[in-house]
């Protein structure tokens, strides 16, 4: 089996870009190690309710791809794993990978969820649910989300009573019908040698708590949300079961979206995050679909509807859904505690005036920064916080065999991430095959 493979490739990051790269490589008969830091692949896209501009549901289109990853014999999935180092050795790369313990035997676990139901570390003893951006809590033993791949339980050692105190509880072990719980699981260091490495580690959101962003009142006012939090509220799998409600359970009458929070900002992040105009338009439309009466305003600098079908989507939002677009920057957000309303103060550029608007919810369209793993720094392909690639090929670094794709490179939307994933697979094929004679290639 191994002999028939064209080569071995490590794909770092199991978001949509990495998944696509892994699938294409597996189909081209490469052995692929898909290395994902969290307990499930899927990345940010898995957290989305819908995608722009088609509004098709993210999980419907992503889940089959995730399941395909699991089904491919050519893909070995390493979850809870982080690449600590990459060393170039001739034509090969040596990877050192640290894999955190899952405390659940993935061969035995059937994903039935009995352990999750019985886990005692819940509610206040639980932890913020990463999938729901901390808007809900999860148990110590948990399955990250309904469509997780692998759909296996994982134990959070920080809150698991048994793992913290080395005794007691252990109820999951008792109820597990498959005997899959293993409290003695330990961290592992894995070493891999591969022909090429594709880095698809995605992006990080700008922290809305930065002092420069304090004017938006995030963390201070409960009804100021980041856009990824708001996405979770819209999602049927989210903390409210898809109900568009405030933290007090009431329905908002008005929602204000604020664009370019932490991007196009001279101090924090000078560039544009590319995804957020459309993401906010999408969320605005979804809010309207949830609650047709809700009044939605988007405060923007420029609407960057640059992709296929985007302009149409933007026009529909404005004309069909009656979403209000106001060009202008936000000066600040305060609260009127008597009315339980937020007050957004903003500049209406088109009218040349300073205005205020009462609202129930504010959604901040957060800027993003590339999430660049430290080994790329050590490989010397990073300058000023950005990955440097060849001028004729935006995904090939100056280290032959190291390819960087998706938002690790620059802000990228889903189709572009998918394209870069496939393109990276093609680059790997070229890279590996050009070292072999055509005869060898044909024989395999």
């Amino acid at each position, binding site marked *: 089996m191994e002999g028939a493979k064209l080569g071995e490739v490590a794909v770092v990051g199991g978001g949509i870009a990495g998944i696509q790269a892994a699938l294409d490589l597996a189909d081209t008969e490469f052995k692929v190690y898909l290395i994902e830091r969290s307990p499930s692949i899927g990345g940010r896209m898995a957290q989305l309710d819908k995608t722009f501009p088609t509004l098709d549901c993210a999980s419907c289109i992503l889940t089959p791809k995730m399941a395909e990853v699991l089904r491919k014999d050519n893909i070995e999935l390493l979850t809870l794993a982080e690449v600590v180092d990459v060393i170039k050795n001739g034509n090969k790369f040596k990877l050192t990978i640290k894999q955190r313990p899952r405390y659940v035997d993935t061969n035995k676990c059937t994903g039935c969820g009995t352990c999750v139901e019985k886990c005692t570390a819940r509610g206040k003893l639980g932890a913020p649910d990463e999938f729901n951006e901390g808007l809900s809590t999860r148990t110590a033993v948990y399955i990250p989300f309904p469509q997780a791949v692998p759909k296996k339980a994982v134990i959070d050692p920080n809150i698991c009573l048994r793992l913290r105190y080395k005794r007691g509880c252990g109820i999951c072990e008792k109820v597990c019908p498959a005997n899959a719980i293993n409290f003695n699981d330990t961290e592992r260091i894995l070493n891999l040698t591969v022909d090429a490495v594709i880095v698809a580690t995605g992006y990080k959101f700008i922290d809305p708590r930065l002092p420069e962003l304090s004017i938006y009142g995030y963390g201070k006012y409960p009804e100021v949300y980041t856009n990824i939090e708001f996405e979770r509220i819209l999602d049927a799998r989210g903390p409210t079961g898809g109900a568009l409600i405030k933290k007090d359970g009431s329905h908002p009458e008005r929602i204000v979206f604020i664009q370019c929070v932490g991007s196009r900002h001279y101090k924090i992040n000078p560039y544009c995050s590319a995804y957020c105009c459309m993401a906010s338009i999408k969320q605005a439309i979804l809010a309207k679909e949830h609650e047709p009466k809700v009044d939605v305003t988007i405060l923007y600098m420029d609407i960057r509807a640059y*992709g296929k079908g985007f302009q149409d989507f933007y026009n529909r939002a404005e004309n069909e859904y009656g979403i209000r677009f106001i060009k202008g920057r936000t000066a600040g957000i305060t609260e009127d505690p008597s009315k339980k309303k937020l007050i957004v103060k903003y500049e209406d550029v088109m009218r040349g005036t300073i205005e205020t608007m009462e609202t129930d919810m504010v959604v901040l369209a957060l800027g993003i920064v590339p999430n660049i793993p430290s080994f790329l720094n050590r490989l010397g392909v990073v300058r000023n916080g950005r990955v440097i690639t060849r001028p004729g090929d*935006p995904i090939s670094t100056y280290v032959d065999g190291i390819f960087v794709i998706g938002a690790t490179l620059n802000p990228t939307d889903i189709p572009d991430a998918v394209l870069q994933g496939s393109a990276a697979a*093609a680059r790997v094929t070229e890279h590996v095959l050009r070292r072999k004679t055509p005869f060898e290639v044909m024989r395999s």
Partner: protein
Amino acid sequence: MRDKDVRIGVYICHCGTNIAGIVDVEEVARYASSIPGVVVARHYTFMCSETGQNMIKDDIKNLKLNGVVVAACSPALHEVTFKNAVKEAGLNPYLFEMVNIREHCSWTHTDRRLATEKAKDLVRMAIAKVKELEPLEEVKAEVVNSVLVVGSGVAGLSAALTLARAGLTVYIIDKRPVLGGFVTRLVNIAPIGIRGREFVKPMIDELVEMPNVKVLTNAEVISVEGGVGNFKVRIRQRPTYISDLCTLCGYCEKACPIEVPNEYEGKLTMRKAIYLPFKEAYPPKYVIDENACTKCGKCIDACPVKAIDLSVKERYIDLNVGAIIIAVGHEPYEPDKGEFGYGLTRRVITSLQLERLLDEEGPTGGRFIIDGKVPKTIVFISCVGSLIGNKTTNACSRRCCSTITYDTLKILSKNPDSHIYILYRDIRTYGFEEELYWKALENGVVFVKFEEPPKVEVMGDKIMVYVREATINKNIVIPADLVVLFVGMTPSNAGEIVRIFKLSRTADGFIREAHLKLRPAETPTEGIFLAGAAAGPKGVMESVIHGAAAASKALALLLNKKYILREPLVAKVDEELCSGCLICVGMCPFNAISVKYVGERRVATVNPLLCMGCGTCAAACPSGAMEHNGFKDKQILAQVRAFAGVVV
């Protein structure tokens, strides 16, 4: 059909207590075993476990089962697991049916009796279906390990290079006489600042040297037959009239009496009917503009190497390829005469003409002058032909904002005291290219936002541009020396391409991809892939990536592969019953159904390699001649009848 000797095994999974906690699995198994045709019904803690699977495998062998029903979780989770188990035991995997009594039953109900009744119903329905199932074989098709790339712009070149480097045979064709596509008209590729012709030159150089690459210029696809893995493509190549003997001496050009505007110089200069498109052009020889040439024969006399033969006729080439990549690119919008003053004066130009004026090898040698004068006040109008203008696509052309800001910086570097105004709707310098916008601002470029399109009036030496500045809400007039219309991208010949390759277009007129988000390099037709601006406005770098992505799909399909296997759950025609009414043909979104003759009779036929197995044709077929494998009428009807409690 299999009624008489049907031998079915039924397996009920407890899934720990997930199912057994609510559903009385013993009762369900007991009930199943009472149904005629069921030879064995078992229940077990985890059917998906090794032990559970072995249970099924052993029964298939020992009890000679010819049908298997597993009642467990969702088929989305374990259908493949059990299918494989059935297959490993030597039974055709399509004689297996999965019943979902977890997600659809135990997990959604609380009443043990009702949940058990429901599980029994569902199992009964599945047994009824299995009785009607038929063994199916995967569709195995031989593949041709070659790829046709249609279009030789950046996307096509990128795809072709990748494929060729990996060892596949590549045919790359272009309807124009030279390779390189649109990018050869650009002087600056934002943001990397490389000349377009220099950008594609190394790609073309490498490509044409490869033994496994065949280049055809002046060539267009006229018909496509067959399907994934084995397309039969007919290509028409218009004559080039000039052989490879051409030494580029240029005597023919001097002799030619015909002059026409040179489209390779943005029509800013003239060229002859026999001409060399540009210095770096490939193939490296003169070409004849068929439309302009009068066949006077003066060039033949002038040619010292006898390279010209005007009697050459067009020829047809038939290719057999495993995959096709459509990379036909886009056309820049050509404004109408008078649209924003275009065509009324030489000082209203399009962005393409601007490119030529900025090129060191352009008509002005790279000096930024027009009519012999350095334009001082320059007004850019963006979105012409995309969001504003006489004919628009109502879609953003994506790259113009970055290119405008980049061009202004280039102009300012040549003539630092220029006054530049950019009239825009929204500045869409997405991603890192925002920094170009900032640079332009820092360098004093004035950005003027409009809501209503500006008006352009030519008044003698000056061009007056009227615009209502939307952010200050004031009408302003700019007397300009030069107006540059930034033209949008329009689909290139997409209608014709869509017709020939049986594809479809999106509302903006560009070619539709299989899935806008997750399958952007594929078309709905398997084996036909999509790259570059043919799918919608794209930048050069984005086209490089799109080309490589399309190549990746072709590599996965063809590299080192002899066959492809396809699920047999496709439509199939009973030719005996087909009346040739053609209703099904119009139903198929994948053009998998065509017509063939059986003797005198015209009948429908399904290409199993193109069929995606939706079954819409079977539902529409008025004769019942079209059947959907795995979901035949009798199979679904068996379920429906069993639903009502009738055990058949």
